[in-house]
């Protein structure tokens, strides 16, 4: 075995608002990254533990979030293999609801997650962070740790409001402060048959501050069925519109994150 350093990319699925498709995106994209041959880790940071549930893993981390943050090398001990080749999971734990408080005890709380992730960079090509819906110290630590923020946006008025809030944060320098951090939005649960969705999509694509990816994930029963199947869409319905859209979304994200590799492969 070789111990070659990896050019790891940390990708967080984030939105201030809940129920917009963060977990679905994190699970499906992480699965696709692993299926493409990359060593991939998904860290379920949301105490609701939806990603953990989808991979049938027990939502328990011994020592809780506090223990995980305290020792820089402890994350490795809690990693579980999923049922899919090359895809591992760092499970959620109910104690993550107090992760803000745990982070606050450190001198540089916003930098802590990055430090916890640092040793894992030797093991993984991609690390996905499935974030809880909030704007908090945890979010700041996520922004600091990530190379890319992926923001699912439902093209409806209320959801787009959350997107605009994120845009304000970006302008205030709270997001993307670290050099090289990219923020990509994409439309989630989009219904192109509905004029309102089309209008909102058009309006949001016009905002210069953030990059809106070309691919939209459609509203689809298959995405909801993930809870029943407890698998990524591409496992149980690979030909569905949602599965095809996730593949296209991953291709676009990877092209943006690794332009050299993408052009070499094309």
């Amino acid at each position: 075995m070789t111990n070659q350093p990896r050019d790891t990319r940390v990708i967080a699925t984030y939105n201030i608002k809940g129920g917009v498709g963060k977990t679905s995106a994190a699970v499906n994209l992480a699965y696709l990254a692993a299926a493409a041959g990359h060593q991939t880790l998904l860290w379920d940071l949301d105490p609701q533990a939806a990603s953990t549930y989808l991979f049938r893993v027990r939502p328990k981390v011994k020592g809780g979030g506090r223990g995980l943050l305290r020792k820089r090398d402890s994350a490795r001990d809690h990693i579980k293999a999923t049922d899919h080749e090359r895809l591992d999971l760092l499970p959620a734990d109910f104690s993550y609801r107090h992760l803000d408080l745990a982070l606050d005890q450190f001198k540089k709380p916003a930098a802590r997650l990055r430090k916890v992730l640092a040793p894992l960079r030797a093991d993984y090509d991609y690390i996905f962070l499935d974030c809880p819906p909030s704007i908090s110290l945890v979010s700041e630590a996520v922004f600091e740790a990530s190379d890319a923020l992926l923001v699912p946006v439902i093209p409806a008025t209320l959801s787009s409001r959350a997107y605009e809030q994120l845009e304000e944060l970006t302008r205030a320098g709270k997001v993307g402060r670290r050099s090289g951090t990219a923020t990509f939005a994409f439309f989630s649960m989009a219904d192109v048959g509905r004029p309102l969705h089309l209008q909102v999509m058009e309006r949001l694509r016009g905002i210069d501050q953030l990059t809106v990816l070309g691919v939209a994930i459609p509203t689809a029963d298959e995405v909801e069925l993930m809870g029943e199947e407890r698998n990524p869409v591409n496992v149980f319905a690979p030909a569905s519109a949602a599965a095809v859209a996730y593949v296209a979304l991953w291709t676009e994200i990877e092209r943006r994150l690794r332009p050299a590799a993408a052009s070499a492969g094309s």
Partner: protein
Amino acid sequence: MSARGELFTYADAAAQVRAALPPSYGVTQAPNGPIDVRDERQKLVCRIQLRVLTGGSQWLTLAPLRGYERKCDRIRCWLEHGGVHPSWQWKQARVPMAADDPANVAVARVLERLLEIQQANLPGVLAGEDPEFLHDLRVANRRARTVVRQMDAAFAPADAARIAAELRWLGAQTGPTRDLEVLLATLDPVTAELEPLRLLLERRLVHARAEMTVSLRSQRATQLDSTLTRLVQEAAQRAPAAIGVAELAGARIRRLHRRMVRAGGAISAQIEPQVYHELRKQGKELRYLLELFGLALFDNTAVGELIAALKELQDVLGRHQDCAVHAATLRQLAPQLAAQPGGVGALLATGSVIAGLEARQAEAREHFESSFNIFASARQRKLVARVFD
């Protein structure tokens, strides 16, 4: 992944696994695929690889998924309770015998068991997926050669020579592959500078494996088991049962111990590495005799104490020899390595590896005296005299 664990079963493996596990566990198997074991959450926790061996018996290799090692240990326990024999039992070379059993009969029984183990590992060696199969085959082979050589009075000399020649042939076919596998494992983890060396060794390993596979698929190899079994049985029938097995084994153990004490006592700091190696080879033979005959026929506690002291000494001698062999191989590879892309950097890094091996070898020499003194102590010598006289 945790260490390899094999289980041995004669029944249909998937059905046996299913029957051994609690009903909340799920067991599935794709055609010709591994057995997947799911826990009560229906989470995949362990994969069981199968390999069918001669006579329809199967090796089961349990591979836990990361984070589920303890669950896999529980599964292993359930399987053992369910009648699947763990490898340590399966690899058990000792056979029941009584002190006054005729030596030819007892030796033939031990050899047959060793041949069985050797043969059972052959499909795994040919599949080439797990180096442990080759290791186990070679241990069984070495043990059998020791038994033939040391328990010489059990068979007629001509019979013993024929059996030894066949066993030696198999050992020779598998040696180069095993040496390269061990050397590669020693280098792990490989730094970027050593990558050209790793690639060179990997290429040699592929070549060595290919040659070994051709040999092991040859007519001589495919008939080896039946040839050896026939030779052993014929030898046992022809040999005069003039001596009891305990008498013969006791005499040989005493002789080997005496020789080792003498040879080890003559070792000084400046002596050639080969002398340590010769002592190690004698030590291996002594250990095999103690394990195969000593434990079965004599005072178990005393034999256990002798084995423990010998093991310490063998560890030191083994470290010394492995370092010497690896360093010599790496030195031989230097010209070829220099010609590889990135070879100059690799050569420098290999120099550091060789220096590290030499340091470990020197360290082993330093430890030799203390471990040898325990092995050759008056207490141990008296124990040998008391137990085996």
